[in-house]
């Protein structure tokens, strides 16, 4: 693999992790706000 492909190969994973983290935080925040609004337990 060339240097540029190796660089992309190593650094793509933190980018994917950042996307997943964004999805999780967004979904959790919605659920938390919903539970506060309805008065139901989050868990």
């Amino acid at each position, binding site marked *: 693999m060339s240097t540029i492909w190796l660089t992309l190969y190593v650094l793509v994973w933190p980018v994917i992790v950042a996307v*997943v*983290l964004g999805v*999780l935080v967004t979904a959790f925040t919605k*659920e938390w706000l919903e539970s506060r609004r309805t008065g139901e337990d989050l*868990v």
Partner: protein
Amino acid sequence: MVQFSIPLILLLLLLFYGGTFWISVRIGKRNENADGYMTAGNKLGFGISAASMTATWIWASSLYASATSGYTYGISGPIHYGLWGALMILFIYPFGRRIRAVAPKAHTLAEVMFARHGRSSQLMLAGSNVVGSVISLMSNFLAGGVLIALLSPLNFIQGVFTVALGVLLYSLWSGFRASVLTDFVQVVAMLGAVVVIVPVIFFAAGFPAAFEIGAANLTAQQSNFFSSEAFLKQGAPYIAAVLAYAIGNQTIAQRLFAVDERLIKPTFITATVGYGATVIGIGMLGVLALYLGIEPVDGDVNNIIPQMALTYLPPILLVLFFIMVIGALSSTADSDLAALSSIAMADVYGQNVAGKKNANPRTMLLIGRITMVLATAVAISFASLQLSILDLLVFVGALWGALVFPVIASFYWKKVTNKAFTVSVLVALACFLPVRFGWFPVDGAMGYLVDVFNVIGIGVVLGLMVFGFFGLRPAVTVGLIAMVASAPFVIGFLHDYATLSGSLVAYAVSAVVCFAMSVRSKENFDFAVIKRRTGDFDPEPEERHPDDSPEQLAPVPAAKGNQQ
């Protein structure tokens, strides 16, 4: 080597475990619900479920092992660890939907096996779950002890005790509810750390230029993305274990029963991507270390990640790294405690000691909490022995391989009997052990016999994977094609790889025996029975079904209801 001072390490541990304890106190109830303690009411949302699944599946060993794989096998190494580990989550979700459909309010997979077959099947599955969770718990405490000893003046034993008591502290009162909520905080810390740490080390270590300078440090196999060595020694045994770990691990089953049934698919897919990217990303540190020509301290490749962190991270990010590893091991350890307590509550007490009609939720809670304390004590004791965790896990994974076909078949095929389940698992274990540990020479005719089972095992594994997504006909087709296509390469060759062979033999023998004993059976099981025989331990009277056995129909004593 840079170390944290004692006040700093104590402050970090206090903040981490104090914070998680504070979260558990915020959700704690004076009278906890026994079913909530095990599955949090079966209606968890997507965000918290996916975060919990991701956090639970990422443990300290997976971070270390992925980097070890990268350091040992080169650029494809982390893929051959992280990708297959991630697929363990993905491949269980179609089966998970079926399991939830037939047992929407169960707590453990073993509990469902009790309803499907009876006691022997249940206890075999529960027993394998307990062994796996205790090993996992021990491994995480051990990793915590090693990390604290490496980064601070505290010693290994002090580190083990600190981590174990910290996890027990926040898990004890609210059980699974505390586990899933703290998992969210821990996964944010872990994933956030990966996003920052990997690029920082990459540039601080002189990459991308170091790829050219250090290329000579890699062998031809290590430089090859399609390395056969990496596949055969690392990837293939994990592919074989994909279904086994998912079926045999109660921490996964527990989250399967906890999430809102409609959200199983997005939850599992998100956790698959989250786990895979995190573990492969950290594994890249092993690849970078290989390019840099770094020698692991004391020759122990588990030291690669801490070495890279200590060498290239500034102090503030070293703190983040510490929190990442402590978060990884704590989130899995609390899940193991919750899993063990659920098995003791539902499978041991609920189904076998008191019986479902007499099971008292208050007593169940007490048993669950006592189990957590005992499991912590046992895991601390074993952790001090510093056993080879990965060897133990590979062994347990192969043991779980013997259960995969009988368990999955039991959810779809009406003909599978308790006898077929039990006998097939025991025969598979009897064949697995000598192959895995080389109790007899596997050359000559015996080697060919083992390879025939290896071929069948390959067909069973791939067939089951396809079956989950596409159904029986494509599964049989793929399984047969896989056997025919692999036979020329496997026969006379694969028996030399004892780990992989043992696992494939376990799959093959259990599938063949279970099929042979079931195909002519007169059993015509009604899957609707499972839904009625599992579920809450204080069900409403109208939930009972007139077809249930007298034992199932017995009224619930009013005195035991302490539910909220």
